[in-house]
């Protein structure tokens, strides 16, 4: 786009275009630094979660885990592990976005929020690709492919990404005030692995445990993905507004802190 044509645009649109350019450049660059210069790097990005899913699949089969009717072990693991990983990886990657790219803040148009958005987008794109590849493979293998509601599944994925990214932004910005934030992040997030529905569906839980477990927004996300995926499963426990509430609060806190951090960061 020429600079002349840009000057005729309203300021807001001009800002949006400029930020779009920055985020686009950051995504491309992030792809390079993350997956390496070789084409095989992208393959690893897909292969890594696939291996993880296979491991859990084998565990499920060996343990002879009884699932609800209409669910097979492979898709059950995939609809749990992939949204959870999307959440957890967005959170971890975004929380490190300033630390990993501090040098780029040297360019005036690059702001901490751009670094966070770029990492978040890349994470969502990677895990959506992983899910599509895996489920297509699974569908071809079992010769059956049925999605109850593609929209619900997609919303589940989006919320996993947004929830992880906004929480990551809060950690990332708070991390600029104290190193302790980085240290407590792991211990805070890791337990979620066990309670976010990778190993169970909400309706399999006893009523008492269920009410407590449903305070975890990530559980709602995996539950939503499974509700969308399985024609035979419709969860009455998913509360979209609860998850969105979390996203909104985290986004508000994260974005406010980002404004503070923007001024605070000093280039070395």
């Amino acid at each position, binding site marked *: *786009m020429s*600079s002349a044509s*840009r000057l005729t645009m309203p300021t807001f649109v001009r800002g949006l*275009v*400029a930020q779009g*350019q*920055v985020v*686009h*450049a*950051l995504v*491309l*660059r992030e792809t*390079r*630094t993350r997956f390496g*210069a070789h084409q095989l790097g992208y393959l690893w990005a897909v292969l890594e979660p696939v291996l993880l899913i296979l491991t859990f699949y084998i565990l499920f089969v060996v343990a002879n885990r009884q699932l609800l009717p209409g669910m097979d072990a492979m898709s059950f693991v995939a609809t749990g592990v992939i949204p959870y990983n999307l959440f957890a990886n967005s959170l971890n990657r975004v929380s490190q976005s300033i630390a990993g790219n501090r*040098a*780029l*803040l*040297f*360019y*005036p*148009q*690059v702001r901490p929020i751009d670094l966070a958005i770029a990492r978040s987008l890349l994470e969502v794109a990677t895990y959506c690709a992983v899910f599509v590849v895996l489920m297509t493979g699974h569908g071809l293998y079992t010769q059956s492919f049925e999605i109850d509601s593609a929209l619900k599944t997609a919303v589940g994925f989006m919320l996993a990404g947004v929830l992880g990214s906004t929480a990551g932004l809060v950690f990332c910005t708070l991390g600029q005030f104290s190193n302790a934030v980085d240290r407590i992040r792991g211990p805070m997030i890791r337990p979620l692995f066990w309670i976010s529905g990778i190993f169970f569906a909400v309706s399999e839980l006893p009523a008492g445990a269920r009410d407590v477990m449903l305070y975890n927004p990530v559980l709602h996300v995996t539950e939503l993905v499974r509700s969308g995926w399985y024609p035979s499963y419709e969860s009455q426990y998913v509360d979209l507004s609860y998850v969105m509430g979390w996203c909104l609060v985290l986004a508000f806190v994260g974005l406010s802190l980002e404004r503070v951090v*923007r*001024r605070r960061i*000093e*280039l*070395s």
Partner: protein
Amino acid sequence: MIELRNITKSYRTPFGPKVVLSDLSVVFPSLQSVGIIGVNGAGKSTLLRIIGGALQPDSGSVVRDGSISWPIGFAGGFNGTLTGEENCRFVARIYGQEVDRVVEETRAFAEIGNYFFMSVRTYSSGMRARVAFGLSMAINFDAYLVDEVTAVGDRDFKKKCHAAFQERQERSSLIMVSHSIDTLKRFCQKCAVLDTSGLTIYDSVAEAASAYGETEDES
């Protein structure tokens, strides 16, 4: 034109806030080359970064018309794991330039051969500076901010930088920080002294130098 209005900037230190720039107001006219001298720690680099927008002042505002470069001479904006070419692509993209043209012009200017396609971490500081400088020349800025650019690079490279700036003076302005009066004389028409009382612009480098109380340096 670049106008600074009542700029104040302080840094947090373990010994309390340290005010670097205090209520500074100044106008840098278009198509002029202005040098800035001042003792170490006077706030010259801080001033450049505030002009460029990479650093936010505590209070006050900066009015800019036209595009302004990052402070040239500081190759800190490169990622060591990426090649010179990839770094150039990134910068060209964020400035909304034609990526291929910028990459090609930078490669031609830097003259570092195949290193251009190797990781930046394998570069010497001179090579980094060559790429960084070539890159800033490949993007057409209305104003160039320069922070001790001629401190790096060999003689040929310095000559090349000089020629590139000369060629650009008709269409771009230049704000240059340096400790070398000789360098400033070569590049700048006007010169400003930055000290605790603020920024004072003099009509020639010689005037500024005498006000600064500095004799011609030997370099």
